[in-house]
């Protein structure tokens, strides 16, 4: 069913695989790698938007090192204390938006950096990782969002997920565990020839809209052309995706390691389900890079907390602060559950998923309107950073230094990221796995 052009495309895209042991069977390649090579590295970023209760979440700054006392807000993580590191002192220094906990969290961009624009962003750390880690998986990266409406409002700030592409444009995510599950695991029972024909059809659709885009482009001024470029980029992205799909044709989706979820879970239930999906996606090597923009108001509602999210973030002693602390506890409990699952899930070589994954858990907002000392927890041995530590960095160390360190630790040796000024040496001290 492949016509000549798409066959050429197929071969071209398949060409990238020639260096690998065998072209004849993608399955064999995966099998061979599993047997011979250590499991791949993964990165997961969990953003909870509004910050934490400063008084009860952060360890005392004077209490650095491995022997620090775990404060109440993190107490639920006690069983993992040796396996995560908490970093204090970091900030995205250009940020001035007191309610945007996620928009620049992984990018470190300056909203005002470009004259003539009222908004500017740059690539997020997860997408830098995806460019390197995403080549051999069905999904280069997966973005998850809680189903809560208005998640691009106060708390997280603008964005379609935590991820921003290389052009600084927002990347959409799956807004429900149900959708994510089906994308990951629902089988295509369509015959191979039909799938190939469908791909060919999709390409002819793209060719048609591209033709129209070219005719629109004629006569546009420079600014308009730049705007229309987004459309062309979109088409190119779909084509890249189709090439990838083509490579995966005939490769059945993995069996789901969990039952299909039902609709309607919100708040705590949804977070736990998303955590299960994260483990499942990594375990089946469907992707190696994931982000999750977590619920805010829905979480409170599901805990029967009557305080509105923004009010809670402006806590003071009394029911608002209690709400904020309650939220911290539950978030830590859920995070601890995720770490349990990562540790319990075995790779083919007998090591655990935890051994090869970096999980970052945090927000751009410390608490209330504070944007310095962003809460930052790093777990997992994927980047080889020192775990079990409480590291207090000089005030206003660029948060991007942490991202850069994690990227390097994962084998992605980019020169800089965002406004980074260097590597965080403290994260690299000996003793890491």
């Amino acid at each position: 069913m492949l016509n000549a052009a798409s066959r050429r495309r197929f071969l071209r895209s398949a060409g990238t695989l020639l260096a690998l042991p065998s072209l004849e069977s993608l399955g064999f390649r995966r099998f061979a790698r599993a047997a011979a090579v250590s499991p791949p590295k993964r990165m997961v970023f969990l953003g909870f938007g509004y910050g934490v209760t400063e008084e009860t979440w952060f360890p005392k700054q004077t209490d650095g090192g491995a022997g620090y006392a775990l404060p109440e807000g993190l107490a639920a993580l006690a069983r993992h204390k040796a396996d995560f590191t908490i970093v204090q002192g970091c900030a995205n220094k250009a940020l001035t938006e007191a309610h945007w906990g996620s928009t620049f969290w992984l990018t470190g961009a300056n909203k005002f950096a470009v004259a003539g624009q009222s908004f500017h962003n740059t690539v997020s750390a997860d997408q830098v990782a995806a460019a390197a880690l995403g080549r051999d998986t069905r999904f280069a990266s997966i973005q998850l969002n809680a189903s809560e409406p208005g998640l691009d409002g106060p708390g997280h700030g603008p964005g379609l997920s935590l991820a921003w592409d290389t052009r600084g444009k927002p990347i959409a995510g799956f807004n429900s565990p149900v959708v994510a599950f089906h994308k990951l695991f629902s089988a295509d029972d369509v015959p191979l020839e039909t799938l190939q024909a469908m791909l060919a059809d999709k390409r002819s659709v793209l060719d048609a809209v591209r033709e129209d885009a070219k005719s629109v482009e004629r006569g546009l001024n420079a600014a308009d052309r730049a705007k229309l470029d987004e459309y062309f980029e979109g088409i190119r992205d779909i084509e890249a995706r189709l090439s990838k799909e083509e490579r995966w044709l005939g490769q059945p989706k993995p069996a789901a390691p969990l039952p299909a979820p039902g609709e309607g879970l919100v708040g705590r239930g949804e977070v736990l389900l998303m955590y299960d999906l994260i483990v499942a996606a990594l375990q089946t090597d469907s992707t190696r890079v994931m982000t999750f923009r977590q619920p805010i108001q829905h979480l409170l509602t599901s805990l029967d907390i009557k305080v509105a999210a923004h009010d809670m973030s402006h806590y003071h002693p009394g029911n608002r602060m209690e709400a904020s602390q309650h939220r911290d506890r539950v978030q830590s409990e859920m995070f601890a559950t995720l770490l349990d699952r990562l540790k319990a899930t075995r790779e083919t070589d007998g090591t655990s998923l935890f051994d090869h994954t970096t999980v970052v858990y945090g927000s751009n907002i410390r608490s209330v309107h504070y944007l310095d000392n962003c809460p930052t927890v790093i777990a997992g041995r994927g980047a080889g950073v020192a775990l079990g530590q409480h590291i207090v960095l000089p005030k206003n160390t660029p948060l991007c230094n942490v991202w850069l360190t994690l990227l390097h630790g994962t084998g992605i040796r980019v020169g800089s990221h965002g406004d980074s000024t260097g590597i965080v040496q403290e994260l690299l001290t000996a003793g890491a796995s």
Partner: protein
Amino acid sequence: MIRTAWRALVAGAVALAAASGRAAPAGGPGLAEPHIAALRTACLKCHGADDPQGGFRLDTLSAAIDTVEAADRWQKVLGVLNSGEMPPVDEPPLDAVVKIELLDRLAHALVEARQTLADTGGAITMRRLNRREYDNTLRDLLGVQVDVRQLPADSGSPFDTFGSALFMSADQIEQYHEIGLRAIDAAFKKFGKRHERRKLRKEPETEITPRLTKHIQDTIEFHQQLHRWTSAVEEAAKRPENQAVVAELVKLKPDRSSALRHGWEKIAGAPPPTDFGFVDAVRAEHDGFAWRSYGLHRTAYITLPGAATGAYLTVRDAYMNDQYGVGLGHDWPPGRYVLRLRLAATDQSPVRRRCVEYGWWDRLIAIAGCREVTGTMEQPQIMEIPIDVPDTPRGALVIREKGLHDIDGKPHRVFADGMKENGVWLEPAIWIDWVEVEGPFDTDDVPPALTELTSVPDADRPGDSNTSAKLDIRGMLTRFAEKAFRGRDADTGSIDRLVAIFEKRRAAGMSFREAVQEPLAIILSSPHFLYLSEPVAPGAVEAGTRRPLTDLELASRLSYFLTGGPPDDELLDRARAGSLAHPDVLAGEVNRLLADPKSRRFIDAFTHQWLGLDRLDFFQFNDTLYPDYDLATKSLSRQEIFETIALLVREGASLRQLLASDFVVVNGILGRYYGLEVVGDEFRKVSLPAGSPRGGLLGMAAVLAMGSNGEQSSPIERGAWVLRKVLHDPPPPAPPNVPQLTRLDGEILTTRERLLMHQEQPQCASCHRRIDPIGFGMENFDAAGRWRTQDSYTKDGVGTKAWTIDPSGALYGGPAFNDFFALRDVIAGRIDAFATGFTEALLEYALGRPYGFSDEALRDAIVRRAAANDYAVRDFIHAVIQSEAFRSK
């Protein structure tokens, strides 16, 4: 050197302030000499040329804030002053009064500088349709409504028309394509064949009453059987040989009978539950006591006088019609239908409960509207509600009493409240005799874009000698594309590809409709359809210069502004005739479009975004404190604002009416919420009695409710909203990193006392001295916008404090006011500021870009023109459209 820099900054700040028309308060300077002197003294010692601390030099800081770098560095200065980091603790602090003024000026100057730096010089960049416009465009073009919620909401900017925030992505292109396929499919279903009008009639008592009667009989029977079984077990338990066992069993449960029943197997001679018709002891308990949970109120239901001839709407018990659902078969095409009900309010029901709400069951019910019930049991009414039936798959149409199902747990709570009163249930308020759905009514109104396509028989197959040979597919696709592209032609290359795709599908054996669906969906995913493009005429125009729009471009810009959708045929005809650009013709079209019901798509969307009404949905109202401000009422209160502005546009009335007026635009439910005697569902103008606090935005429930958190009023939210939306004096964004106030734990403060703590620190005072007084003046409205004179605050474990509200205060810079009425008068006097803000918002919405300082002359001209006609709202709209900015590329 530093002297020069600071001088220039002052000059820059003053110039900016003057240019914005938003100068510091009357007589107030920009950065005055005392502030500069203070900064010089406080900062230069460490941040001068010699070995500056932290590498930060103030003396080289560029004077005017005219570059991103300068703005960033000044932002740092503002940041460290706000966070209290500077001056350091071991250095002398800034004088508090000086610091307040300095922060105030610097914060405003930075906002203005950012605005200047983002100024596009008036250029309007091509943009795509936002989700709302895309939805409207599909409706207008194809006559169907499809679910577009999978697309991003485009709500991140002040207005969803801002091109710079309307991105495109691979996901979106795929979604447009998929939604396009669905829309074409729905359109063929709706218009592709003649649909007989049909009618479904349901007599609800035929389902509900017999089911209940049977259930009641069963539960009575079970209850009696349980009683019989219990007696038999008790009888056996009396036997001497069972005494030891019984003594053990009764320890397990406080209820002796239940304990014996659960342990019946250990009691010699006790008969098994199966002898009495029960599966086992657990089920016996459950079935036997169903009577307790349901019997009483279900019996009460079937003994009501109307239960034999109709159905009552109840709450909590799904068996008893808590929400009445009507399912439509999936062979019913999407379209316009009528829902007809014969119904009545029960005699003893309180007036506030005489309302129904309805909507589609779509996972959670989406309320489409609510209606008052005016019929009586003596004389029921027939209610007709026009409804849009969506395409399949769709949930059932649901009817229920208003406000009882807003949140989880509410049905149980109101039911329990009723039980407290009568021992049985919440007595029903609404009775329904019958329900009808009739339609569709609009499947013959085939949209022009589809007439040709729907005339080809559905079953046409390739090789069908009757039709295939005659199919002019190229012509059909060209004509459809021209409609979809709002009068512009698709180029031949694109049409070639579409024809090829069609032919390929035909060759695969598809019918005409199957085959044509794909090319049509491609047209609906093409940039010509998705973008409002305005190419430069060939040979003309260099970068940076403006040109007048062509008539076709103007037609689109106009219709997307005033109707949120594509130009209709009349507008396109004017454009093609080349007369649209003539000011009189243009004004005539503006009037025509404003009279079209589609103009509500503009008024509602613009108003919603201009006034920031999304905040209404940010929180749930406490329904114990505000039982009458339920979801339906909240939604009506939002509608009140839209209806008011629509009326001002319709009647050529003044913008002043939004600041203070002697009327409100309400319907019965909302009118009663305000204590007015109004009956009926339609919104209309109602005169207010003298001394009413209503009339104008400040007295509207939705505005007041936004200024709360659903529990308590928030003077800060209200004050900031008034500054932002009414007085054109927006406070700078909440600054990051301001230290928390010291707290007075263990004390209960009045709202005013609590907020006055904001004056403790200069960082807070610089904004809150403007914000808080306005909020205090509005404290006579509670969180849900009802009038009050008392307020109280309860702190857990400390106690409760009640106080009489003191609404007096003074605007920053004067004048003082004694109460809300005086405050409203002061604000009503600021019509110029209000008109200025309104104009900026209107320009932003219409032009699809942020207001910039380069728009200042235009804005002022528009305000002047409107002022000449007492600020008639229509005049603002006309002036924006007649402006060169609106009519040029």
